[in-house]
């Protein structure tokens, strides 16, 4: 239903409070989506790329009429459900990304970033920084991720490879991700023949697993999640991490790869900001990190949906 590149969002106003409707409208405005507000019946006539609807307090079942909308009326549409259920924190992606549940008291910021993820999945050519997404992940880079194999392979997994340079080089001198062939780098990881200056981040949705290979070089690799203990971990070898590791992945995980350690004076502020942004998901974290980096540094962010 996307017309001339503009996203259409249908908002089923039933059960949505006026205050929340205002937040939804603001989120649609920020993402430049064409929003239509009305009853589900009206929206079935107009159609939409994304249906935003609400679940009543205490409800945990996705109503059939919503499912019918995204499976029969608009088979390509995604469903964003605003829930009043504390167990949805901060958001949950179901049915291969077709259904996204957003936790209680969703504001414009939250809805906007979820819309970004859905938009990335249906329109990967929205430009640098807009991100790419599959049913299981969302990824974005401050420089183009155009060379990402998307969807990465037949299992929907994602591999990012980074040329980190050698110890002693300036962080700004390291290369952006896309100069390497991720698939080839992953094979090298498995055969233990990876170049010492290469970092690899691999997410396998089928196994729900991260594979990390990060040498002791200036690059930085963080794992951030509001549902992990600790919420922020440093997985890069240069910061006392494991260097090479497999660890279980979980919905809400956000991996942040930086070309080098952030400036000492901004690190504390950045970390504090990240903790707050984690509950908004990968796009918000990406914005926060991008804004704090020098112009010649790069960042890549991957969110597990």
């Amino acid at each position, binding site marked *: 239903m996307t017309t001339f590149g503009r996203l259409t969002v249908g908002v089923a106003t039933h059960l949505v409070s006026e205050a929340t409707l205002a937040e939804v409208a603001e989120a649609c405005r920020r993402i430049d989506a064409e929003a239509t507000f009305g009853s589900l019946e009206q929206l079935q006539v107009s159609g939409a790329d994304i249906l935003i609807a609400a679940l009543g*307090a205490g409800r945990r079942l996705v109503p059939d009429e919503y*499912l019918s909308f995204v499976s029969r009326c608009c088979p390509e549409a995604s469903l964003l459900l605003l829930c009043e259920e*504390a167990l949805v924190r901060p958001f949950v992606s179901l*049915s291969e990304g077709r259904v996204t549940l957003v936790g209680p008291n969703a504001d414009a910021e939250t809805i906007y970033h979820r819309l970004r993820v859905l938009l990335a999945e249906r329109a990967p050519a929205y430009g640098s920084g807009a991100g790419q997404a599959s*049913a299981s992940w969302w990824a974005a880079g401050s420089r183009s991720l155009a060379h990402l194999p998307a969807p990465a392979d037949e299992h929907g997994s994602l591999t990012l490879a980074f040329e980190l340079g050698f110890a002693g080089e300036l962080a700004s001198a390291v290369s952006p991700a896309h100069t390497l062939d991720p698939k080839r780098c992953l094979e090298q990881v498995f055969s233990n023949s990876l170049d010492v200056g290469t970092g690899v981040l691999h997410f396998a949705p*089928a196994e729900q697993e991260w594979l990390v290979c990060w040498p002791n070089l200036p690059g930085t690799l963080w794992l951030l999640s509001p549902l*992990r*203990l600790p919420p922020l971990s440093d997985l890069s070898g240069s910061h006392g991490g494991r260097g090479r*590791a497999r660890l279980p992945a979980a919905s809400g995980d956000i991996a942040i790869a930086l070309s080098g350690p952030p400036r000492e004076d901004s690190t504390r502020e950045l970390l504090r900001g990240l903790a707050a942004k984690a509950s908004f998901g990968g796009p918000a974290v990406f914005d926060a990190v991008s804004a704090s980096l020098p112009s010649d540094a790069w960042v890549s962010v991957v969110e597990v949906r």
Partner: protein
Amino acid sequence: MSRGRLLVIDDSPTVRKLVELTFPGTGWQIDYAGSGGEALQLAKQAVPDVVLLDFMLPDMRGTDVCELLSKDERTAYVPIVVMSGKGPSIAPMFKEFASFASCIGKPSTSAQIRSAVDAAFESGQGSRRADRARSSFKQREAAAKLVYAVLRDAFGQIPRLMAELGEAAPAPFFAKKLLTPELVGRMLDALSLEPEPVSAAVAPSARALALVDDSSFHGSVTGWPVASLLSCFESSGRTGELTIAFDGKVTIAYLRAGEVIFVTNRDPKEYLRGSLPTVARLGTVPREALRAAEKLQRETGTPLFVTLAAAGFFPLAELTEVLRSRGRRLLLDAVEASAASFSWRDVTALPAHVEAHGRHVSTARNTLVFGADDEAPPASLSLKQMALERLRQEPAATPLASDSVFSRAPGFSSQVRHFDLTGLERRVLALVDGQTAGDELAVRAASPVAEVLPVLARLVDVGLLRAAHASESHSSRSKARPLMILEPDMTGFQAPLTALLQNRAEPVALLDLAGETDVLAAVKRAQPRAVILNAASGGAAETARRLRSAAEVPGLVLVAVLEPQMASQASELIAAGFDKALVKPIPYSEIERLVS
């Protein structure tokens, strides 16, 4: 074009929706069952081609479902794909079942589910053809033996009859002499099915009940609803007393010619539950009379209203309606039970009060259809929803103490899907937190107290909420077994964990073991449900050994937290007595699993 029938057995709405979105347009006809009992009933009604089975169900385990399906020849060959969070590691538990096809993880992707189901379907087609052939051969072989047994004596007469044959045509002659109507009748009798057993986990058919000559018998129902049992009796046309025991309750139903006409129990308190207006009218009854009526009900099952009416303490004009209303409620509870034992005895003369006030109450699967003067409920309504609808029409049901606080009842999430709730009911459900009294909830719900209290009462009555006095609630919360932790990272571990634990429906206290010189003594004192120890703090293995050897802390869950660089020590710590070794950064879901 229809590919086949898929039976999905899982109480998770998420999995249902996932399956729903996995198979559109593939030709699969999908049935859903939320429990093992429901699944077995569905499988008998429409035999599936493939079963997608969750390992953990509300009423039984996946292995139980496999066993019950394998005992029924109609479903014994249906291939079963098992879903489990432990993935293929549980496959050995199912190896004994010929119908077990494969095991997939949970959660699985749509592609994995589709692939497993398709593979199972293909394998099932082959084995089904073979099974049919085997089954057909066995049936024919058995039939041939039966026919031979009947004809053997007749064949023995052939030498004698040869002398009489003479010039007659042999075929008509022997047919006339041997295939007498009596012999053909015996052959047909021999080929008819044997009566089915009544008890055990297989639903008795109405025919089986009719064939039970005993005037009294007992049995049990597991894996299929009590409603089916009542349907069987209904079809059998028998008159008598059926006693059903379930969930610690006993309900007595009187049947006349197969119809349930009267329902009672021997527990006056339970009998009166949910009938505040009627109970209020008993306030003027002398205490001795009330006690005597209750005693009689406990001894004989005669409802206390019958006794009170006979003594002039309850209006006779209203008696039939009250008895019918109470009986319906008891029956609603009973037919919802997934497991029960029952006993039956034929009664030629029903008790006088049953004869006088008994009204027809017929049962149908998932619905009850009452007498002609009642409005028949729509067939799509669940029994629970019907109970709620009825309570909505009554004034407040359960009397509520002014200091009652409310929390979600156990099994809330699986129960709530049976209900179609009003806006206010949903708001109230979202607001209960186990600490707030009804009047405060009304303020938060922005609704009058007079409206919110009845809502709370009926939500308690239908089992979605439970009420407790504020003091009891506080006391039970303070008694909740805490989680003990020895973790030096306050900001990265303890603080966020505390926040996450407080967000649970039933918050769990986190006790810091830092500074404790004697961990064992602290654990004995606090009796926690689990102890989380950071292995980097030193002496973790020794602490685990000491805790494991202490008799005072049985069943304690011991968890080691490892820094990433210590991951290789996990097996060593498990050997020392830890139940689990978790490597940072730990998903909160792992902790939640331990706490739950």
